[in-house]
């Protein structure tokens, strides 16, 4: 019984495909899965826009949108109609082809990322042996799309915004990938399906998620902070700084193209959270062994929802980071932490199971955090200015 509910969508896909000619069946079943992914994540995007606005509103002691539909939950429909009916302006000095292609490329890349995420047991679109590598390669295409957007606008502020965005994304790719390398080392596999299956066991009640190891804990936080920076989300949203350079690299976009940018950004956020869930939070596995009767896809989306709520919470709490603060943080704190984490993961792997390995690895994480944190914050103290050549 539990198994049928868990495999419901897989069996549904197979049933529909069985009604088509044999030669076409692989194509049809893949197309069905693609349609399902497109539909589900577009709906999740709509839901997230409302959740974000209402969540931020409540954090700021006000109601969010509450006019359209019950408690404002049909707001995305109104937003969609608005963005579809706005005039599509292309600046005279803009490079028309690139201006058109940039949002399309962003959305394409963002949707492609979902191909390697296992959304449930046996529910991955493509089981690549190098799934994680594919993911990082395609997420770099998103950076190219953002640069195309800034360049093609023919506006120096958009160009600046795009350059800052790309600099930010490149600097945060390094700790992102280094944090993932620890997981790859522990799971000895680049395949997302393999990584999830390594975490799907239980000792007693507790799961084998990589989050519950010292290096996994540190790695998860490194990964999520880098993910926030990768998706240009607060507090790292300087490139799109709403109150500064209007909308940065997508200032010159209006109407549907703007909506596509929004869609692409949010999808990127979902995809990278999805990867974080796959790598550190055990993908579709339940948190306790007595909860495995709840279907696997439910757990994946529940974890994704928790990630989204965390993103919204952080957005409502933290002020925006300046460009230099952002870069300092990436290169002077995150990168050394990620490297030490690598060593940590190796030590964990080779020590025998027991208290010693917990103490050693946990201590290494704590010490490096405190020392690096102190090093980072010391640079913030203002000193008395000395004008050397004036004396």
């Amino acid at each position, binding site marked *: 019984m539990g198994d049928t509910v868990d495999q419901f969508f897989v069996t549904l896909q197979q049933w529909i495909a069985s009604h088509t000619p044999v030669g076409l069946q692989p194509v049809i079943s893949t197309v069905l899965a693609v349609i399902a992914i497109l539909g589900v994540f577009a709906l999740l995007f709509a839901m997230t826009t409302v959740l974000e606005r209402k969540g931020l509103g*409540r*954090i*700021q*002691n*006000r*109601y969010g949108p509450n006019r359209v539909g019950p408690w404002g939950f049909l707001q995305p429909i109104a937003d969609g109609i608005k963005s579809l009916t706005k005039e599509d302006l292309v600046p005279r000095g803009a490079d028309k082809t690139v201006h058109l292609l940039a949002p399309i490329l962003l959305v394409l890349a963002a949707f492609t990322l979902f191909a390697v995420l296992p959304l449930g047991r046996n529910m991955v679109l493509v089981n690549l042996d190098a799934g994680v590598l594919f993911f990082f390669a395609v997420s770099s295409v998103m950076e190219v799309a953002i640069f195309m957007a800034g360049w093609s606008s023919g506006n120096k502020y958009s160009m600046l915004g795009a350059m800052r965005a790309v600099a930010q994304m490149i600097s945060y790719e390094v700790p992102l990938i280094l944090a993932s390398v620890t997981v790859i080392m522990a799971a000895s596999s680049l395949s997302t399906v393999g990584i999830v299956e390594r975490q799907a066991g239980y000792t007693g009640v507790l799961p084998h998620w990589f989050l519950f190891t010292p290096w996994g804990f540190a790695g998860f936080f490194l990964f999520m902070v880098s993910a926030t920076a990768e998706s240009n989300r607060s507090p790292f949203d300087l490139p799109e700084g709403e109150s500064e350079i209007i909308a940065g690299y997508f200032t010159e976009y209006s109407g549907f193209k703007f909506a596509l940018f929004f869609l692409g950004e949010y999808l990127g956020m979902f995809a990278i959270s999805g990867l974080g869930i796959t790598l550190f939070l055990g993908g579709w596995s339940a948190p306790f062994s007595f909860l495995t009767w709840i279907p696997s896809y439910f757990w994946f989306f529940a974890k994704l929802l928790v990630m989204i709520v965390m993103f919204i*919470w952080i957005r*409502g709490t933290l002020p925006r980071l300046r460009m230099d603060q952002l870069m300092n943080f990436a290169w002077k*704190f995150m990168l050394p932490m990620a490297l030490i984490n690598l060593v940590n993961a190796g030590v964990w792997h080779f020590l025998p199971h027991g208290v010693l390995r917990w103490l050693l690895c946990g201590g290494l994480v704590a010490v490096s955090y405190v020392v690096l944190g102190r090093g980072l914050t010391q640079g913030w103290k203002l000193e008395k200015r000395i004008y050397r050549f004036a004396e």
Partner: protein
Amino acid sequence: MLGEGIAKGLVETARNFFGSYVNKDRLTTVQYPEQRLPQIEATRDFPFLVYDGDDWQAGMRCVACQICEKECPPKCIFIEKSKDKKADAVGKPQFYPAVFNIDVSVCMSCQICVEVCPFEAIKMDTEYELSTDDRFCGLLWEKERLSKPNEHYRRIHPTDAAVSDALLAEEKAKVEAKAKAANETKTNPTVSNTTPADSGVPSA
């Protein structure tokens, strides 16, 4: 330690979030149009003409002195004097406005017209939901639209209305006393022509 401030901030925002559901005082939003902010007594939006009694044309206090028209900074008042006269608020026969237009889209609610009016005829209303879809004449208000009874004035500005009523009552009493004195001299020609007010002047 790094991250301490962030953690405290996160706790604060979480408290705000959950508090907004539990504690209604946190949400200060007034859900217009289901709710409205209460207005203070001294609220002013656009002028209206006061009339006494039931007939807005007979009871109108305005005597078309045109002082408000001249003092209005954006010149949004337009007055045309009538040819005949009618009794004003205190009983004296005065001209009245044949045309009294205020262009509300120009009016800046400065209340100067109210301050300079010697006849307590024009006062500030408190209505602000005045949207109209007639872009030519919808916001050009004429005499009839502008006239509102004294009861309305008493309701929206009780303190000011009390002062205004007292002033008018005093004026009316003076006028009536004068008329009475004039009547008495007409019927009794032997009584000296000096008015009671002159008795204070030392006789030469």
